[in-house]
Every structure is written in structure tokens, then in C-alpha cells.
């Protein structure tokens, strides 16, 4: 089975759900889950059969000949981990949305459309196609937040959409400029990369494209959509936002901006690295003073995505493979943490204010254990995937400048501070708060346990056996770097 079937299957699932009767809620859920599982299985299969280097072209046909647009999908070691990530987040996101009762049909239809779009972005090798999938992923996002969200949902949704469209506009201009400067023959990324455009054009096009995509990666100072968006979104959407949508940005930065504009990249390399470091520290420090549980995780995403940017900017194999692994790792960690905050805690207590929570370890111990494990992974404890990713990013940064590495490493201490702070406020401490009195709090359900276990197992497997993903990432980072020279 080819990996591009993930896209079609997921679209198919979304279409099927639209045809199902509105009241067959369980059927809809199961169809969604099976679709997600099929996508995950395909992604996993793709990772297993991938032989280690180069591209596997899945489809490459002319689409809009007059513009040189091709329908070109391919996988390599850089996007396969992300395809896998998308499958995992999709399945677990559906599991954590099992309790949605309002407009179930529309929810899962939008959800799967979004997932399909993300699959498309990860595999598209044509800039125009990538852009189409990219927008396809953004639009359902808006509706999911605006309809099923909470706290200032219209604002959060609007902010996200506005940000990403402004980013898209910047990207669009850059892409067109690159297209024309390259002779207006093709949008194919691999073709375009063979003939880089003139240096002086690259120098101003690169920041447009990179920052445009960087918006979605939570790049400082274009990050403020992330916390508000996460907070407004329903659990599954937060998981998707932090888990995969932010990776859309960073992946596109890598695949489009960095590959097509090597000279521009060389010119702006230090800027990106420092923006990454600022994001790391800024996100961590702001997370430290948040009063809302979800805002903490939201800002921690900004901080962790800073590691991705920093790693990409190092332009060496350690840093870049660390960045790709960090994309995967943070996708899992963030999904897990948002699942705890949104599904396990908020759906039961109906508050996210740290001051109103407390003592939940006794009421829902499973949520506490999950948060401890997710938190440990988030603070880069050895044995979890985040450690392997961050240590590589830091080694790469070290080779660029010790200061970058030293400042970024400071976040290790701050991260443990805000994670522990949240852990203690929410799960430990004295009982007797209002939320506690609800002893009728429903116990942790089976879908929640299954979803959490999948995510935790992934963290540990990749943490203890990083080679499983690193092999293919590393080989492709090498050819990526080789291709840039």
C-alpha cells in the first residue's frame, strides 16, 4: 500500500461521514476511528518499508500544465516521521473526542478533512499543491474552533485564521516571485531546487516564505495565535494544532523555504537561530506566570517549537535531524498534555484556572500519571523522545555558537519549573475545593486510556530506541545538506 493513500482514504472517510445519518453518532465515531487507524497503519507501513535514503515518488502527473503545476507526492526520511505523527495524533484525537455530542457528524468530517490536508502538505512536492493542501488544512481548523471551542472561541479562531492567512499571503508572494525568477516553468520543489534563483532575489524572498510558514510554527514574534488558539479550541483541535498544524509550518519552512533559497538561508541563518532561542526562553518564561492550565501548555508549545527553529537554523546534521525529531516528539508530547488538560481535566471540572483546581491526583489518578509522564517528556527527561531530540538540537547549536546552546539550555530549568508548578497546583495540594466536591466526576473512560497509552508508548519507544526514526531522518538530512551545497 502506498503512503499517499492516507490522503485519499482520509478524504473518503470524511465524505462517508457526511453521508451518514446525523443521529448515528456511534457509527460516525467508529468510521472516523477506523479511517484514522487506516491512515496510521499506512503511515507506519510507509516508515517500515522505506529503505533509508532518497525519495519514493508516489504520484507525479501534470495538473495545471499552463502553470507548470504538477500533482507530485513523494515521501522521504524527513516527512515520513511527520506522516506517522499525523496518523497517531489523528487516532488519539478521535479517541479523545469520543465524548463530543454536539454536531458529531460535522465535527468528524471537518476533523478528517483537516487531517487529509495535513497528510497532503507533508507529501506534496509541488509548491502550488503544497499551498492548496495547506489552505485546505487551515479552513476546517477555523470551524472546529469556532463551533466546538470554548473561551473566546470566535476571537481565537479569527486570530488563528488571520495570522495564517497573512502568513499564507507572504508565502504566496514569495512563491510567485520564486516561480517567475526561476523562469516560470515549474512549481516542482525538486526541480526548482536544482536551479536556485539569483542570490539577491533569494535574500528578500527567503524571509517572506520562511516567516510566512514560520507563523504557523509559532515563530516569535508571530506566535500569539498559538496560545489563544489552543485555549479556544476543543481538545482534539488543540491536539491537532500543537501536534501537527504547528509542524506544517516548520516542515514547510524546511521543505520549501530552506531548500529553495539556500543563499537566502545563509543570509538569515543567524536571525532564525536567535528567533528560535528567544521563542524558547520567552515561551517558557511566559508559561511560568500563566494562571490558566491550557495557556501553560500553549506557551510551552511556543518554547518547544523554538527548538525546531533553532535546530533547522544550525544547518548541520545534528541540529537538523534533532529538529525533525523534535517536530515528531513535540507533536506527541503536546497532544498528550492537551489531552490531559482539555479532556481529562477540563471536561470534568469545567475550569482550567490553576487556583480553582487541586488535589485531582486522588480523584483521577490516571490523569495525574499521564501528566507526570507527559511533563517529564516535555522537560526533556532521558528515556523520552524529547531528550534525544533536544540534545541533538543543542549539540548542533553548540557548533554554531555556545551562547545559543547555553541560553536554550536554560529553558530546561524553567520548563521543569512550570510543569511542576502546574502538576502541583492541579493534582496535588489540599482538597476541599469546589471542583472536588463533585465526587460524581465520571471516571477516566476507555477511549481516554487507550489514547493516552498510545501517546505515552510512542514517547518511550522513540526515547529508548530513537534509531527507529533517526536512521531515516539522518540520511535525508545528509542529502538535504549535500543538495544545498
Amino acid at each position, binding site marked *: 500500500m502506498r503512503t499517499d493513500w492516507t490522503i485519499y482514504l482520509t478524504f473518503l472517510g470524511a465524505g462517508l461521514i457526511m453521508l451518514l445519518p446525523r443521529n448515528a453518532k456511534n457509527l460516525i465515531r467508529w468510521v472516523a476511528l477506523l479511517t484514522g487507524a487506516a491512515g496510521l497503519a499506512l503511515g507506519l507501513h510507509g516508515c517500515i518499508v522505506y529503505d533509508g535514503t532518497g525519495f519514493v515518488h508516489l504520484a507525479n502527473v501534470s495538473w495545471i500544465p499552463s502553470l507548470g503545476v504538477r500533482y507530485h507526492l513523494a515521501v522521504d526520511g524527513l516527512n515520513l516521521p511527520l506522516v506517522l505523527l499525523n496518523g497517531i495524533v489523528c487516532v488519539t484525537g478521535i479517541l479523545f473526542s469520543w465524548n463530543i455530542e454536539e454536531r458529531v457528524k460535522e465535527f468528524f468530517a471537518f476533523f478528517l478533512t483537516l487531517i487529509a490536508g495535513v497528510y497532503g502538505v507533508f507529501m506534496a512536492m509541488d509548491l502550488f499543491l503544497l499551498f492548496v493542501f495547506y489552505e485546505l488544512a487551515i479552513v476546517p481548523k477555523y470551524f472546529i474552533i469556532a463551533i466546538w471551542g470554548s473561551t473566546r472561541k470566535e476571537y481565537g479562531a479569527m486570530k488563528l*485564521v488571520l495570522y495564517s492567512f497573512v502568513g499564507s499571503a507572504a508565502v504566496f508572494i514569495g512563491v510567485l516571485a520564486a516561480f517567475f525568477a526561476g523562469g516560470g516553468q515549474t512549481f516542482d520543489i525538486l526541480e526548482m531546487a536544482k536551479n536556485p534563483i539569483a542570490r539577491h532575489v533569494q535574500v528578500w524572498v527567503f524571509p517572506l516564505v520562511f516567516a510566512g510558514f514560520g507563523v504557523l510554527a509559532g515563530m516569535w514574534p508571530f506566535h500569539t495565535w498559538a496560545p489563544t488558539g489552543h485555549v479556544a479550541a476543543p481538545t482534539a483541535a488543540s491536539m491537532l494544532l500543537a501536534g501537527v498544524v504547528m509542524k506544517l509550518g516548520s516542515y514547510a519552512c524546511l521543505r520549501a523555504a530552506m531548500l529553495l533559497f539556500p543563499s537566502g538561508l545563509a543570509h538569515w541563518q543567524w536571525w532564525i537561530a536567535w528567533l528560535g532561542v528567544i521563542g524558547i526562553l520567552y515561551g517558557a518564561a511566559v508559561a511560568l506566570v500563566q494562571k490558566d492550565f491550557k495557556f501553560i501548555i500553549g506557551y510551552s508549545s511556543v518554547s518547544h517549537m523554538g527548538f525546531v527553529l533553532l535546530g533547522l537554523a544550525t544547518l548541520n546534521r545534528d541540529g537538523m535531524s534533532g529538529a525533525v525529531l523534535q517536530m515528531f516528539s513535540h507533536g506527541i508530547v503536546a497532544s498528550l498534555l492537551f489531552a490531559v488538560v482539555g479532556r481529562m481535566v477540563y471536561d470534568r471540572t469545567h475550569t482550567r484556572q490553576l487556583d480553582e483546581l487541586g488535589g485531582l491526583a486522588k480523584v483521577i489518578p490516571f490523569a495525574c500519571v499521564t501528566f507526570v509522564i507527559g511533563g517529564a517528556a516535555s522537560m526533556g527527561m532521558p528515556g523520552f523522545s524529547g531528550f534525544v531530540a533536544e540534545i541533538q538540537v543543542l549539540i548542533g547549536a553548540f557548533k554554531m555558537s555556545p551562547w545559543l546552546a547555553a541560553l536554550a539550555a536554560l529553558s530546561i530549568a*524553567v520548563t521543569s519549573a512550570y510543569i511542576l508548578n502546574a502538576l502541583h497546583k492541579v493534582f496535588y495540594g489540599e482538597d476541599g475545593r469546589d471542583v472536588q466536591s463533585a465526587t460524581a466526576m465520571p471516571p477516566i473512560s476507555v477511549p481516554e486510556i487507550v489514547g493516552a497509552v498510545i501517546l505515552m508508548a510512542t514517547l518511550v519507544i522513540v526515547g529508548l530506541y530513537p534509531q527507529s526514526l533517526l536512521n531515516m531522518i539522518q540520511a535525508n538530512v545528509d542529502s538535504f545538506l549535500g543538495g544545498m551545497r
Partner: protein
Amino acid sequence: MNELVKQQWLIPFLPLVAAAVQALLPRTARKLSAGICLTAMGASCVLALRAFVGTLGHHEAERAVWNFVWFDYGTTRLELGFILDPMTAAMALMVAFVGFWIFVNATGYMSDDENFTRFFCFLSLFAAAMLGLVVANNLLMLFMCWELVGLCSYLLIGFWHFKPSAAAAMKKAFITTRIGDVGFFLGILLLSWQAGTLNLYDGGNGALEQAGALAGIPGWFGWSMATTIAMLLFIGAMGKSAQFPLHVWLPDAMEGPTPVSALIHAATMVAAGVFMVGRMFALFAADTSGLALNIVMWVGCFTALFSATIAVAQFDIKRVLAYSTCSQLGFMMMALGAGGLAPGQFHLLTHAFFKALLFLGSGCVIIGTHHEQDMRKMGGLRKYMPVTFGCYLIGMLALAGVPPFAGFWSKDEVLLVAFQRNKLAWGLATFAAFLTAFYMTRQMFMVFAGKWRGHHEPHEVPWNMWLPIAVLSVFAVGLGFFGAQYGHYLGAHGEDPHGKWIVMGLSVAVGAAGILLGWIVYGRRTMEHADEPDPLAVKLGALFTCLNRKWYVDEFYDATIIRATMLLGELWRAFDKLVIDGILHGIAWMAWGVSQVVRWVGDEFFINGGFDAGCESVRLSGREFAKFQAGRIQGYLRILCLGTVILLVIWYLK
């Protein structure tokens, strides 16, 4: 030895398996859980003993290593490995042996706790991590175990996390050591970059075997690379071994159950920092300027004295011991810094025995007095708890440095190397030794002498609590005689006898003076009532308060570093809200205004331009969903489409 090293992995592995099994046991399987834990630990202890015996026949610092690949990709490979050399063998044996007896004691101390099974699961995991740290021949592996040790200690300190003080302590311990870990982590990165490997020994290619070469490369701050790396690693050691200024977590960590205090905060975990410095000693000593060692020595020396002054004015029985641990760790660091690898490591070993003894003894006291920790509310326990008293006395004499107990010999060696290196450091350390004897005497009199000042009649503890301290007290007496052998065993080339008798004589003298002064202040007339002021407080006045408040270091940190960090967070949050979002909102309003103005133009463009149907359908679905919310997405979509059309038109015209 080459065969033995291949079995080193079993030493940490057995407790690890035990922890995994215990994690799956039901809460009621108390006996089974304790049994598994003790069996695994006992087996590790036997293995460690076998490895230790295996190293005995060899002379000089011979070592065997066994490396294996963890993951490799392309040309980079990351190896992990195990080591067997005298330092590791002795340390592993100590950890497994002392740990075993602490576990035995814990079966008594925790017998009433409803989470008994979980407690032993954490203990096993902790032991596994600590033993893994000791047998690691790879700095990354050492670091991983180091972090696991930190995590376990977090879980164990906060085992009673429903107590707010315990919850605060667990957080503080973790974060403070984590700050040290930032340095450690950077040191590892720098070493891996410079040496190309994190294997410590690897047939001539290991990181430590390149220490000489690293000393020749310039690093940061005008230091050599070896010194730079060593200093970064030392920051980690300062966090873990509670050296000033990262010492603040250790005394608070006494909030955990007492066996935890004995295990983590006396015998093993805090020793990890000292052990790591010893393990990386080649790197510290590589630079001929001796800068790295000097810094280690002075940090150690200052901590030794500083914590000893605080211990003088504490009332909690465990806090006195906690500060004395800080102080003793300072002695060890000072010895290492003065170039005395063997004395530093030897003091680490003897201290582990008598400090575990003291902590477990204090645990017996706490249980015997119905969970009382305030020494003012004790007194006269000699009569009620004779066995505990006897063992505690041995531990106290060992700590106070009275010959012929173990602490005397090892501390004497520490003072001797300090004397030979730097007279001032020696002088300060000798004064710290005087204070040690004084505060331990104070504690003895407050707890065991005089009359009982508490409420309920105290009682002696069951055998499974006093047996461990009895066993440990044998070692607290006898271990000291092996100091010289230990030096040979580690490969030290004979001891420099210069100044030996002066140091030893003064050491005995200050020990005696400390005990005498303790007797004068606390022994001649013992306390009558619990609310009576401390005689020392009467004499010292404000100074006593200052010592009792631990020189206000916590308050200082709260007011400076913590407040500054929080302020920075608040500042940046405000920046997000006001500046970044402010700009965003400004743009949004502008866009809205513009879209109003160009609405009809835009519509014209849409219809006439006939932009592809997908865009139109998005717009329609947007209108469809507009029922549900009040957003203005159509406006933005319209702008995007408009822009696209304009760009396409420009291109067509071109």
C-alpha cells in the same frame, strides 16, 4: 575482570526489574513487594561484592570496560557502556549494601503507610538508577541515570505530597538540581563535541583519556577546554551534591519519609555529585594551572563551613543531620579539589555508612516518639530506646571525628590533603570540624539526655528497624582502618606524610573541644521544658536567629532570582498582550475597514474574474457557517482571493 565487567549491567538491572514488577502489583501485596525489593537489592549486593572481590587482586588503577552501541546512524554512533574499576566497585558495593539495610529499615518505618507498595517500587527504581550511575562508562548514560535519580528523589521526597511542606520540598529539590543540570548538560555537549565521544574509557579513545589534549585547547573565558568542561560538569555536581549556592534544596528534602532521607540525602544520591567529580577527575586535574581543582576546593571548603554554622542552630532532628550532610559533602569536594581523589572518595564511603546510620537512627527516634521531630520536645530517650541510643552514639562519634571511629580517619585524610594544598582552606575546614563535634553533641544531649519533655511515653522500635542501624554501626567503627589500603586500591602512590601529625593532633583536639563545649552548653544542665529557650540562643542573640534562618539564603533567592524570573515572565506576557496583539488588532481593524470600502469592488472582481470554483465554495460554506458565529472570515478570505487575483492578473499582463 574482563569477564566480570560484562555482568556489571546486572547490578542496576535487578532492582529495575523489581521496580517494574512492583509497579504491577496490587496495593495490598505489601509483603510480596517488600520481598521482591529486598531480594533484588540483596542479589545486586552479592554481585557488587563479587565485582569488588574481582578488583582486589589487581594492583594499581586497572579497569575493564565494556561498550555497546545504543544507536548509530550513518557515521555517528552513540555508545553506552559499563565499567569495572576500583572506584566503581567500591561505590557500587557501598550503595547496594547500605541501600539494602535502609530498605530493611523502611519495611518497619513505612509499615503503616497505605501506599507501601508504591513506596518500595520507587525505592527499587531509585536504587537501579543510582547503581546505573555508578557502573556507567559513558557520560550520557551517567546523565540519564542521574536524571532518573533526580526524578525518583522527587517522587520520594514528595511521597506524602498531601503535606504542603512536602509538596514544596519536592518541587524545590527537583528544580534546584535541574538548574545544576543545565550546566552538566552543557558540559556533556561540549565534551561530546570536543572529544567526539562520551565514553569515558575506550581503549585510549575515551573522553577521559583525551583529557590531556583537551587541556591544550583554548576554551571559554580564557580557560582551557578541559577546565571549561570540568567547570560546567561541576555545576551539575554542585546541584546534586548540594554545594553552595545550590544547597538550599537538601535540608527541605527532609520532608520525605526518613528512610528516603537516609537513602537519598545521606548515603547515595547526594554522593552522586562527588562521585561524578571523582569519576571525571582526570578532566579536572588535566590543566596544569589547577584552576578547576582550586574552584572545587574553595566551593567545598566554603560549603563545609557555611552549612556547619547553620546546623548549630536547628531544632529539627533531621535538619541538623541534613546540614551536616551538606557540610560533609563540602569536605569531600574540598578533598577532591585539593587533589586528593582517594581521601575524597574514602570519606564518601565512610560518611555513607555513618550518615545512613544517623538518619535511620533519627527515624527510629521519630517513630519511637510518635512522629516527633522537634528536638526540644524530646529528651531522656537513652532510657527508653537503649539500642537506638547506642548505635546513634557510634554514628555521632564517627561524624564528630573521634578516634578510632571511621569518620575520624577519613576526615583526617581530607584535612591532610587540604593542609598540604592550602593552609587557609585547612584552617576553615578544621573549624568546621569543630562545629561538627559541637552540634552533634548538642543533638545528643537534647535528644537522649535529661528528662522526657514530650507527651506520650516513647518506646523502642521493632527489630527490623534497629537491626539495620546495628549493622551499619559495625562499619561506622571498623571501616576507617582501611583508609590507607583504599588509597593503594585506587592507585594512589603512597601518602605524603608531610604535616600528618600536626593535622591529626589538631583534628583530635578540635573534636574534643567541640564535644566539651557541647557538654558545657547543653550537658551540664539539660533542658527542663520544651518551650525553654536554647542556651545558645540566649548567648548569641540575633546571630542565632540568623543561623536558625539559614543565613536567609532562601529569602534572598525568593527576593531576587525567583522574583526576577517571574517578573520577566509577566513582562513578556504583557508584551504579548499589548504590543504584539496590539499591532495585530490594529491590522485587523484596518483590514476590516479596507474590506468595507472595497466590498463592492471585490464582488465585481469575484464575479468577473471567475476565480476558480474552490474559492467560491469556501466562501459559500463560510456564509453557511456564518450562522453559528460572528466572525468576519469572509472579509479575510475575500482579501486573500483578491490578492491572488491581482497577482495572477499582473502575471498575465507581464
